Each structure stands twice: as structure tokens, then as C-alpha cells.
């Protein structure tokens, strides 16, 4: 019963989301697109985090997708819509190749290496003047769908839907068991038949593909990019803060965090043009120090307390009551 209720709620939410352009103006749709982009990045970051690997390279794959898409259209004459799929593929293939090397690394070494890779991508785009336009970047002759606000919104929503679908599959399939086992105890995982490298590679390639796809959607919607906008550190920072705030190791946590922080940041951007990002830094610090399981973790704890000893949740619905305090 509980599951059916959740499906109905999700369907209603999706219908409302799809219908948004009917009653929202251009500016709110623009804000919605920005929130959805960050939401997709936050969810994809969390998907890899479920294996215990912290990526600081979201912006790297996002930027890579941006450039792959815009250059495919500009230099290869590819159809803009097709170029989004192409960019996702490029990001996935790059992640696949890199994965063989960097997925041997753990903890801080993995994190720092992803950060370094992002810098490498940025420097390459900066320096390939003839191909990538160098520091000034590249501009498309026209934006996809002729810049129609509703169409751009639906495109972004589509990207988000694919991401959430992938994350949902991660939660419902045996991937969840594999990634959680790897995060908790690699030795135990190995002696129970889990091919650690294979599952890390799957998670890394899938999340990189999603990030590349969102980069492509972004660049097609704005019609231009430069190394500094494509590889903007905010594309790493904001999703990370959003996922942490909402609650990591779940799909719904990062989504909630993205809605809260995304809307808050739009407002703050107007109020404090310089330094509104300080809010993100402070949120990260507060979450780590006082609520490591995020808002959803807090809510769950409150429900558990209110519910007393007869705690809810059943073995047939493992995913939503997953996260206990460490």
C-alpha cells in the first residue's frame, strides 16, 4: 500500500512538472531549469557516493559534455538534439577509459584525482584555440528549438527524468546491494562474490554519462560556452551541498536539497551579487557537523522517535529506510 501511494504521488508530481510551462512565465521557467540541472547533478553525484567514492569532478564531466555537444554541432554539423546523446556517450566513454586507472584509488586520492582531471579538461579546452575557441569559448548560431522557453524546459525535464530513473534503478536493483556492500566493507564484498571494480566502473560510467548529458542540455539551451563557464566549480559545489543538505545515499534527499537550495540561491543571487555562495559553504559545514544524514535523516529520526518501539518499514521495502547513523 505504501509503495502504491508513493507511485501515485510521483505521478502527480510528474504531471505538475510537465504542465509547468502552461502557467509559468519565462523567468520562473528559467529558474526551474537551473534547479533541475543542479538536481540532476546532485542525484548523479550521490549515485557514485553510494559506493563510498567522493567525486569532486562533477564540473569536469559536465563541461566535457558541454564541449562535446557544442563542438559536434559547430564542427561536425550534427543535429543539436542528437549531439546531446553524443555528448553523453563521449562522457561515458571517457569515464570508462579513465575508470580503469582511477577506480583503483580510494578516499582522498580518488577525490583529488577527479578534481585534477577536471582541471586538465579545462586547460585542454583553454589551449586548443582552433578547435575549442580557446579562452573566449564558442557560440552557436542559434539555440536549440529556436530558444522556445517551454521546449527548453521540457528538454531539461527530460534530462532530469532520465537521471532520476537511473537513480531509482540503482536503488531497486542489486546495484544497491553491491554499492552499499562496497561502501561498508570491501573485504566482505569480495568474499561474497562482488566484483568491486566492475560495479565501481558501472557507477562511474553511468553517473559520468548523466553529467555529460546535463552539460550538453545546458550548452544547447544557452547557445555558448567558455572554459570558465563549462568547468565552473559551482557545478561541483552546488550539487554536493544540495545532496548533503537533503540527505545522501538516496534519490529523494538530493532532490529535496536541490529544490531548497536552488530556489534559495536564486533569491540570494539577487540580494547579494558577490559572495552569495557563502551560504553553500556554511550549509556544508553545518550539515557535516550537526546532521550528517541530512534533512531526511533528521525527519526519519523524528518519525522513529514519535513512532516509539514499533518501528515501521518492512523487508519488502528496503530502500527508503536504508540509512542508519554510522
Amino acid at each position, binding site marked *: 500500500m505504501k509503495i502504491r501511494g508513493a507511485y501515485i504521488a510521483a505521478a502527480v508530481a510528474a504531471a505538475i512538472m510537465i504542465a509547468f510551462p502552461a502557467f509559468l512565465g519565462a523567468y520562473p521557467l528559467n529558474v526551474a531549469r537551473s534547479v533541475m540541472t543542479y538536481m540532476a547533478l546532485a542525484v548523479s553525484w550521490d549515485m557514485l557516493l553510494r559506493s563510498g567514492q567522493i567525486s569532486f569532478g562533477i564540473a569536469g564531466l559536465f563541461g566535457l559534455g558541454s564541449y562535446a555537444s557544442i563542438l559536434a554541432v559547430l564542427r561536425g554539423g550534427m543535429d543539436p538534439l542528437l549531439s546531446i546523446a553524443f555528448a553523453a556517450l563521449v562522457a561515458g566513454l571517457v569515464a570508462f577509459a579513465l575508470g580503469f586507472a582511477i577506480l583503483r584509488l580510494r578516499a582522498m586520492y580518488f577525490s583529488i584525482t577527479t578534481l585534477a582531471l577536471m582541471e586538465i579538461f579545462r586547460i585542454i579546452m583553454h589551449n586548443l584555440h582552433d578547435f575549442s575557441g580557446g579562452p573566449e569559448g564558442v557560440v552557436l548560431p542559434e539555440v536549440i528549438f529556436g530558444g522556445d522557453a517551454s521546449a527548453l524546459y521540457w528538454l531539461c525535464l527530460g534530462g532530469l527524468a532520465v537521471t532520476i530513473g537511473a537513480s531509482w534503478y540503482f536503488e531497486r536493483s542489486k546495484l544497491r546491494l553491491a554499492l552499499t*556492500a562496497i561502501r561498508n566493507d570491501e*573485504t566482505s564484498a*569480495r*568474499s*561474497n562474490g562482488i566484483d568491486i571494480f566492475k560495479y565501481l566502473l558501472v557507477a562511474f560510467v553511468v553517473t559520468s554519462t548523466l553529467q555529460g548529458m546535463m552539460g550538453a542540455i545546458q550548452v544547447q539551451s544557452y547557445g555558448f560556452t567558455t572554459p570558465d563557464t563549462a568547468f565552473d566549480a559551482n557545478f561541483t559545489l552546488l550539487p554536493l551541498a544540495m545532496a548533503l543538505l537533503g540527505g545522501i545515499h538516496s534519490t529523494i534527499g538530493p532532490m529535496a536539497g536541490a529544490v531548497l537550495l536552488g530556489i534559495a540561491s536564486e533569491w540570494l543571487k539577487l540580494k547579494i551579487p558577490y559572495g552569495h555562495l557563502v551560504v553553500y559553504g556554511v550549509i556544508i559545514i553545518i550539515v557535516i557537523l550537526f546532521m550528517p544524514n541530512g534533512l531526511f535523516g533528521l525527519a526519519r529520526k523524528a518519525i522513529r522517535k514519535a513512532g516509539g518501539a514499533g518501528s515501521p518499514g518492512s*523487508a519488502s521495502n528496503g530502500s527508503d529506510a536504508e540509512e542508519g547513523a554510522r
Partner: protein
Amino acid sequence: MSKLSTTGLTKAFSGLVAVNDVSFAMEEGEILGIIGPNGAGKTTFIHLVSGILMPSSGRIEFKGRDVTYLPAHERSRLGIARTYQLIHPLENLKVLENVMVGAVFSRGKSLREARLSAEGICDELGLGGLDRDTAQLSILEIKKMEIARALANEPEVLFLDEVMAGLNSDETKQMIETVRRIAGERRMAVGVVEHVMGVIRELTQRVIVLEAGELIAEGPYEKVSKDPRVIEAYLGGAA
């Protein structure tokens, strides 16, 4: 043919030889005791045959097949399972899911099939409350959960590394019964590392004795325990 055998198995860590030229075999349906003083290399030996560590030299065969350098996850799929001396629960998975892991990844079962088989195994071991977090389990329950997870791999060879440690005498008795029953029903070869000699005497048909990485004696417990080299090893360790 032996279920599992090693020839000249050796593991050296920069200078220190933890396992030195050990050759042994385990047969179907047998419970083998692996004993020796602290630091004799018993756990390292199990790490080697289960693939958690790779040997420096020597050979490991599983049912006649060379598995010396096979990665751990592939060995568990072939049928070599184990538990750990220090507990290794997967704390972000429920008890049942902990057990399911073995069935899903070693046996390639679907989640539904794995759930059924895990429930069956837990039932057999008398482990209830499968919807709990591992943090809520007693030490006996965690040990049972880890045995259940190993059994969900449907192994032909199972190593139990000090599963009785930390249990009181009633629990130990219960655990001896459990191990004997699961070994008998499945015709597995079971290797048991224990420090409590009473457990070894009651549970095993045969023991091997390791000292400083070398195999120094082999045979039924009654015989081995009278072997002067074994007595020397234990007394020497105590002195």
C-alpha cells in the same frame, strides 16, 4: 579428488614469512580444525585460500582446478566461502540483505530468489528479526548472520575463523551444534580456526597445526595433542 588442496603455499610480508611451505588437503564432508599459537599464520592461511591475499609462491587447487591467483570474488563463486575473525557486518544493509548479498553475487540469483534462500538459511540457523539494522544485533546474532551470508554463497568449502570467540558457554554449545548440522547436511568441507581446544576436540575429525607459518603436525586431535612438537609449540608460545 580433494575439495581443496595447497602445495608449498608460502606468503612473505617484507621479510616476515607468515605462511611457509604449507601443503594440505580437505575432503568432502570433513570438519578440519586449524590450530596453532597466536601469530602462527592461521588467519593469513585462510586469507590465501580465499583469495583476500595473494601467495608469494605455491599452488592452490579447488577440485583439481588451479585457483592460486584467482581473485576473491571469483573463488566465492566457485564455492569457497569464509567468515572473518573480526566481524564484518554491512551496516547500511538490513540483516536479511546482508545474507542476500552472498546469494545474489556468488550464485547470480535474482533479488526475489535470493530473498527466499536467505530467509531459509536464517531460519535454519535460528536467526530472526531479519528486518533489523545490524547495529541492533547481539554478538551471537552477528556471528550467525555472517555464517548465514557465507552459506548463501552455497559453498563447497567453508572456513570459519574463530566464530566461537566472544560467545558464552551456552552460546558456544549452540554454535557447535549449528556448525555440525550445516556441515553434515551440505556435505561441505569445513575448516575451523579456534583457540578453545574443547571446541576443536568436539567438532573436528582431523586437525592441522601451524607454528610460525609452518605445518608441524596433522591428524586426529587426540593424537596431535600428544605430539611433543605441538606441546612444545604451545608451551614455547606461552613461556
